[in-house]
């Protein structure tokens, strides 16, 4: 029996099924697209994206979104932005290629930093952008403003760390060795015997005649022996003088070693840096790093989702019961980008201190997933009294270049808690500015904050315990009504360098130096005394030994030389008397 290939009677049910599917799509399209938009947005930003209502109007190529809320990827209970309504005009044909090209987007009622009830952060994984930025922020060393508190224990000083006692012991050994050597050499000279022999010869010559040639010859030999003994004494004197000089230099070196030991002991005190830049970094470094991290987060997101070039790019696939896998894009020259927002006009509201929020206008253009295809950088700009914003993300070329600058005057600045101190700063109304330029891996950024009427409050929540440093800082800052903070970031992304300064730095530095300087002087005196107690004991006897040895050797050598000189004079005198006849002379 031949079996038919097609089941023609099933065509009608198939068409009915297709119609039902189409009807279901039309009914649920808004919901499906809303969920897809929420899912994609959440993945992109790293925080919950919620949409109250979305309407897809395909015949007119329009999408309307009402009640958009984007949670902050940085703060747990804060929204990044909320928008009352967004209307996007789409190009329909790219939708067939699963591409989204938005000709024009208008957003109204944009508000930033509004509170939320639940934590909307979804990022933070070590391999995500947030993890990457956090790791980057960890490289920036923010010093802690802390003074040593309480007594600085002398027991911290380990005697084994001191060099002076070891040097003194070595010098003492050298002195002992030198004394033994000189004693031995002095004995070897046998000066007394030579001098006695000379004196005996003088006695023999008293009754001698000038014609006693043999006696005169003996006298001359004795005189020669005296001269040789004098030469040996001279040589020993030279050697002893240089040896004593070396020992005295060693004794002087003990003083230098002691100075080094003082330095070692001072190093154990862990004295804080009291330079003004350190203070600025300690007070506002964390806040500056937080701002720079946030700016860099958006730059990194931009680089991840708007990469230069036309190579295939893999991004995480859609969430589903099965594995998500990776979805790979294959951009091609002269084709549409996978995503393109040509222009956007935004109406945003920013709060001012003590007044109703003001509405500002901003525009965005050229935001695309494939900058190389679009061929132009993404830009954002806004200008209004007291508000200025400009950003350019140029990923068209191989080396991405991102610049942004924003300043806002007369707005309520967010309060700051000074790190590790129970002090809270409420800047009130002021001006804040942030500029950032990232070219390839090189970064230059600056954050400034100014306010003329700051309020300082003591934080009684117990988050930072009360401390002498905190009290001191409070006494200084509570009388300062203005604030001007400037932080700059330079270097490569791998090795960034942070510099922070503020108008509080000098005032705090002077006050801290005055108070801490006295404490530090006391601490230094204490450690010097401890070093003295450990060093003077072994050093004093060695110094005395060197002094005594020098005098002793000099005295003994002087005595020996005197004996020889006297004997030689007497012998020469007697010989001169014997041989003083005309025509005769001493040999």
């Amino acid at each position, binding site marked *: 029996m031949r079996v038919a*290939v097609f089941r023609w009677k099933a065509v009608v049910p198939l068409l009915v099924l297709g119609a039902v*599917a189409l009807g279901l799509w039309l009914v649920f399209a808004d919901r499906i697209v809303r969920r897809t938009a929420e899912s994609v947005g959440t993945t992109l930003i790293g925080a919950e994206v919620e949409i109250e209502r979305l309407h897809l109007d395909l015949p007119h190529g329009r999408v309307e979104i009402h009640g958009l809320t984007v949670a902050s990827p940085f703060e747990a209970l804060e929204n990044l932005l909320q928008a009352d309504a967004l209307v996007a005009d789409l190009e329909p044909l790219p939708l*067939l*290629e699963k591409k989204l090209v938005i000709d024009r987007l208008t957003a109204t009622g944009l508000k930033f930093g509004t509170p939320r009830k639940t934590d909307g952060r979804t990022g933070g994984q070590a391999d995500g952008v947030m993890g990457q930025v956090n790791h980057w922020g960890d490289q920036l060393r923010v010093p802690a403003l802390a003074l040593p508190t309480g007594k600085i224990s002398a027991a911290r000083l380990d005697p084994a760390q001191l060099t002076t006692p070891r040097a003194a012991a070595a010098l003492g050994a050298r002195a002992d060795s030198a004394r033994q050597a000189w004693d031995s050499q002095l004995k070897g000279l046998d000066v007394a015997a030579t001098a006695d022999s000379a004196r005996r010869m003088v006695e023999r010559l008293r009754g001698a005649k000038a014609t006693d040639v043999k006696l005169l010859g003996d006298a001359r030999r004795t005189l020669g022996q005296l001269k040789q003994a004098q030469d040996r004494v001279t040589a020993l004197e030279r050697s002893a003088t240089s040896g004593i000089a070396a020992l005295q230099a060693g004794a002087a070196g003990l003083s230098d070693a002691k100075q080094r030991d003082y330095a070692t002991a001072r190093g154990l005190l862990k004295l804080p840096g009291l330079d003004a830049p350190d203070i600025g970094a300690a007070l506002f470094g964390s806040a500056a790093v937080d701002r720079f991290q946030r700016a860099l987060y958006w730059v990194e997101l931009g680089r991840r989702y708007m990469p230069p070039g036309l190579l*295939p790019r893999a991004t995480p696939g859609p969430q589903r019961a*099965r594995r998500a*896998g990776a*979805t*790979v894009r294959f951009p091609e020259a002269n084709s549409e980008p996978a995503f393109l927002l040509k222009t956007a006009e935004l109406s945003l509201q920013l709060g001012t201190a003590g007044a109703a929020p003001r509405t500002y206008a901003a525009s965005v253009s050229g935001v695309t997933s494939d900058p190389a295809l679009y061929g132009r950088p993404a830009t954002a700009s806004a200008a209004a009294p007291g508000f200025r914003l400009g950003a350019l993300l140029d990923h068209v070329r191989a080396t991405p270049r991102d610049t942004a600058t924003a300043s806002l005057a007369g707005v309520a600045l967010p309060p700051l808690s000074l790190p590790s101190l129970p002090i809270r700063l409420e800047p009130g109304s002021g001006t804040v500015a942030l500029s950032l330029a990232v070219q390839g891996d090189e970064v230059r950024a600056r954050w400034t904050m100014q306010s003329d009427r700051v309020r300082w409050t003591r934080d009684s929540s117990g988050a930072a315990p009360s401390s002498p440093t905190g009290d001191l800082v409070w006494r200084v800052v509570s009388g300062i009504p203005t604030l001007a903070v400037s932080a700059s970031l330079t270097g490569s992304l791998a090795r960034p360098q942070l510099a922070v300064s503020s108008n509080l730095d000098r005032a705090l530095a002077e006050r801290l130096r005055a108070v801490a300087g006295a404490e530090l002087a006391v601490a230094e005196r204490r450690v010097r005394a401890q070093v003295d107690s450990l060093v003077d004991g072994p050093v004093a006897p060695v110094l005395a030994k060197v002094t005594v040895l020098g005098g002793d050797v000099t005295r003994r050598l002087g005595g020996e030389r005197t004996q020889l000189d006297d004997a030689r004079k007497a012998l020469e005198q007697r010989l001169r008397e014997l041989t003083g006849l005309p025509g005769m002379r001493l040999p």
Partner: protein
Amino acid sequence: MLVLKLIQSLIKALHSEGTPGQLAAGLALGSILGLTPLWNLHNAVVLALIIVLNVSFAGAMLGWALFVPMGFLLDPAFDWIGRTLLLETQALRPLWTALYNAPVVPLTSFNNTIVLGSLVVAAALWVPLFFASRWGIVRYRATVVERVKRSALYRSVVASKLYNLYRLFRPEA
């Protein structure tokens, strides 16, 4: 009850009027639904084929039910195959680029590693699965079917009184 339905479906399919070839073709087409992520455009095409082609619908449902768990289990392998094809095979890049920038084709999500990997595996398995299942069905009908028909289990399942009773008394959602 899912197991009961599966057994019921299996027995209905194996003992249906269809030829072993129709049953095997349905089962092989159903395996594509099971192996690949369901909500994709290519599965709409597969479903249309199951309806329009003269294959066993019960066999297709059986194939789908049998291969869904295999799809979940093999996802890591599908991901690897998809990555290899999409990202690491330079020779295929022009093809993917052309397909990605063609109308409608991107709606199939072929550029997802799981979708492509599972679709390639399902397509490669289709012919062997068709012949293997057809041989198995022929052997089954020649040797086992009569003994199964006489078994108490078969009679109770085919009568499906238990299942119908369950349906009457199952709790409302």
